[in-house]
């Protein structure tokens, strides 16, 4: 049979069969173009209909806005509007536009375009989520006394003017273009579904640098739709991507080893990872289980059994901060500094359980009715850090005699159990806080809300402490006094720490990687992260 192997035909075939080696490649880069990966296709390019993160990023990069919220200072900065004035009652806002503004297609941008864009966002038919931030969008009117002035009349004062107008992109009146004609730094030039979105520089962008050169510096941006983290990292290390927004903690070490100058740990984010028990009275659980979860002592004992420092060190490879409340220490304006971290003490936890009627029998914990304490923790698949935390919590609670099963589900199945059927016992998930102002967490804390996770959509608050939280959150939402708001939010944090409806675990750190070839990056822990000053960013050695 050696002759078989020596056959030239067979050998040639073998060589052919041993494949064409083609390295993994991104789409070829255009000169001066910045490139990085996004993880799924934008759901829409219409800036008024944005309701997911990637579409929001595209709007940020392309939309011309009246005001831009500075992510660091949280102060609005003039953009298309060179100035604005809010009336003392807060019900009228007057914007003064810059002169000579143009859209990317060369057409003039005037107050008529601004008014049209605002009215379109406010219109119920558009179903824009920004409209809800006007409190009573149906009663908002817009008028334009001259081509450079826009007056917005609100029925009720709105709290975060900078944030709202940061999310409204101005489009040409009566010519919505889905991001193709914009007043922002870039326009949408090309989109191949499942592959990439290409943005091109807006030649008529209003901003110039100190030397009078027109911004943006980069000729364009390519956003590759890339799900494979390994490939994203390989392409970044090869120089084909300029940044990685949100590096997964398990990959930070390897990136730090291979490209130490490019990785940054910006410290705690505003986001939280937490666990909670199902306290909904209508949940399809046995009554004795509901009794456990409604017992404050039980929840506090679970909170004290979990070793958060280990979670941060092991599940996040050191890139997380132990958490005890819903406001991260990175949110200096709103964090309750007086809040004390509860002790992580098995002895104290045991004491709390004993006081709540639980007792040990061998290795297991039993309630007062003789049922062994056994429950499941649901979490979503695809998040390695969260799954590690679940496995570690399982062990921490096993030391207290609790038998915990960890169940990972895909998101739709998880949401159906959590939000529609309340068919779960405990859940471990994260909350993304896109902004520091705690007003954005109203949906989570109001007992009547569908997002009041542990016991949603209550007709009236089930407990006194939930009633107090309702009152305090309503107060902070309506009061114009910063000190009143701060006191109310501090009190909510204290109640949450006492009652433990959410058992906070960690604040994941913000991890990013930015190529050393890129200039002008100013990162923020808030979205869009390293792309915040996109107009000023360029690759060294050329921008056009």
């Amino acid at each position, binding site marked *: 049979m050696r002759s*078989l*192997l020596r056959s030239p035909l*067979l050998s040639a075939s*073998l060589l052919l069969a041993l494949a064409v080696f*083609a390295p993994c490649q991104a789409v070829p880069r255009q000169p001066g173009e910045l490139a990085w990966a996004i993880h799924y296709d934008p759901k829409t390019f219409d800036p008024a209909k944005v309701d997911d993160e990637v579409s929001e990023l595209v709007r940020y990069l392309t939309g011309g806005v009246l005001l831009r919220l500075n992510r660091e200072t949280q102060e609005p900065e003039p953009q298309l509007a060179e100035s604005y004035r809010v009336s003392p009652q807060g019900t009228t806002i007057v914007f003064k536009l810059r002169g000579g503004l143009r859209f990317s297609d060369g057409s003039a941008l005037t107050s008529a375009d601004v008014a049209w864009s605002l009215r379109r966002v406010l219109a119920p038919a558009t179903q824009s*989520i920004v409209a809800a931030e006007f409190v009573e969008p149906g009663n908002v009117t817009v008028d334009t006394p001259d081509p450079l002035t826009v007056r917005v009349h609100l029925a009720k004062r709105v709290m975060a003017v900078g944030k709202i107008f940061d999310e409204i992109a101005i489009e040409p009146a009566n010519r919505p273009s889905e991001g193709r004609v914009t007043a922002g730094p870039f326009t949408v030039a090309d989109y191949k579904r499942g592959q990439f979105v290409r943005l091109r520089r807006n030649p008529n962008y209003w901003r110039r640098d100190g030397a009078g050169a027109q911004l943006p510096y980069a000729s364009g941006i390519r956003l590759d739709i890339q799900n494979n983290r390994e*490939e994203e990292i390989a392409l970044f290390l090869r120089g084909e991507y300029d940044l990685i927004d949100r590096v997964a903690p398990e990959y930070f070490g390897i990136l730090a080893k291979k490209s130490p100058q490019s990785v940054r740990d910006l410290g705690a984010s505003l986001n939280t990872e937490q666990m909670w028990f199902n306290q909904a009275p209508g949940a399809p659980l046995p009554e004795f289980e509901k009794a456990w979860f409604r017992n404050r002592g039980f929840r506090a004992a679970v909170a004290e059994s979990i070793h958060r420092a280990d979670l941060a060190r092991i599940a996040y490879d050191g890139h997380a901060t132990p958490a005890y409340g819903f406001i991260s220490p990175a949110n200096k304006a709103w964090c309750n500094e007086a809040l004390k971290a509860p002790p992580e003490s098995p002895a104290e936890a045991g004491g709390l359980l004993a006081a709540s009627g639980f007792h040990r029998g061998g290795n297991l914990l039993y309630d007062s009715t003789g049922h062994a304490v056994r429950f499941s923790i649901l979490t979503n698949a695809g998040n390695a850090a969260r799954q590690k935390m679940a496995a570690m919590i399982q062990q921490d609670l096993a030391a207290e005699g609790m038998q915990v099963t960890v169940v990972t589900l895909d998101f739709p199945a998880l*949401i159906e159990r959590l939000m529609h059927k309340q068919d779960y016992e405990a859940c471990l998930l994260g909350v993304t806080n896109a902004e520091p102002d705690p007003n954005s967490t109203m949906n989570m804390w109001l007992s009547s809300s569908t997002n009041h996770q542990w016991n949603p959509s209550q007709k009236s608050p089930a407990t006194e402490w939930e009633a107090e939280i309702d009152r305090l959150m309503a107060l902070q939402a309506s009061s114009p006094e910063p000190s009143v708001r701060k006191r109310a939010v501090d009190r909510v944090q204290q109640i949450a720490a006492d009652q433990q409806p959410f058992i906070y675990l960690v604040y994941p750190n913000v991890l990013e990687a930015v190529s050393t070839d890129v200039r002008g990056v100013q990162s923020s822990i808030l979205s869009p992260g390293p792309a915040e000053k996109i107009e000023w960013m360029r690759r060294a050695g050329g921008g056009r």
Partner: protein
Amino acid sequence: MNLPRAIAMRVGRGLLLMLFAATGTILLVRFAPGFFADSREMDARYAQAARAEMEVESGRQQSVVQIARQEAKGWLAGDFGQSRQYGVPVAELIGARARVSALLLAQGILRGWLLAVCAALPISALRRGGLLWSLPFTLLLAIPASAMATACILADAGSPALVLSLLIAAREFKFLRSLLEEAWRAPHLLQGRAGGLAPLALVRMHMAPNIAPQLRALATLSIVTALGALVPIEVIFTVPGVGQLAWSAVMNRDLPVLVAVSLLMALVVALAGMLSTHDRTLEAA
């Protein structure tokens, strides 16, 4: 049986298969958990909008009959309905991706078979040591596709077609080696070898015609295996093909896309089944 009747029967069978696939898909997807859930419900910024969309959807797709009617409308209109996740006609989505997947499949299957055949032929003829020579393919069977993909990425070499062909080669090698070992033991081949016939001549003139039916059956098996392997490969390598679309449709419960993918799968399976024809001439009563 005359030819037109045979063709009509096959086409009819194919259409029935597609109807079965579509009905089964609608039932499975509709009653699996999470059909009316949207991941944006967990994010307070988008929850209200997501819930409003789901309520509308729930009104339109509560019963299987309603869903079937909508799907049928989409098929008759030629666009196979609107994708739930992308909001565009399904035909537009699949059309662009089918070409990519077909090319990847063809490359994977052809190369995989070439590798498997070129290795199985000499190894199956060895009197001893066959197990040792088969070790590389045993290893390939043990390595998951995602690990092979990472290896390609780390080595800065290789491609989705390479990984697919290695996966197929690993499987097909096992079957081919087994088949060919059995075939080498046939008396007339032993006689041919003893008589000094060249191995390639033996294979071409005496072995191949005898094992052709089994090879065709294996080819069908191969196509089905390759279809199954297509999804993880396209997802891992972010190839914009039907497999990646199918996975995304599963995660987002995009029923119109899933029905279309099932129809496509049924069509390919029906065509693959036609590959292995059988000979009825020697059939006993």
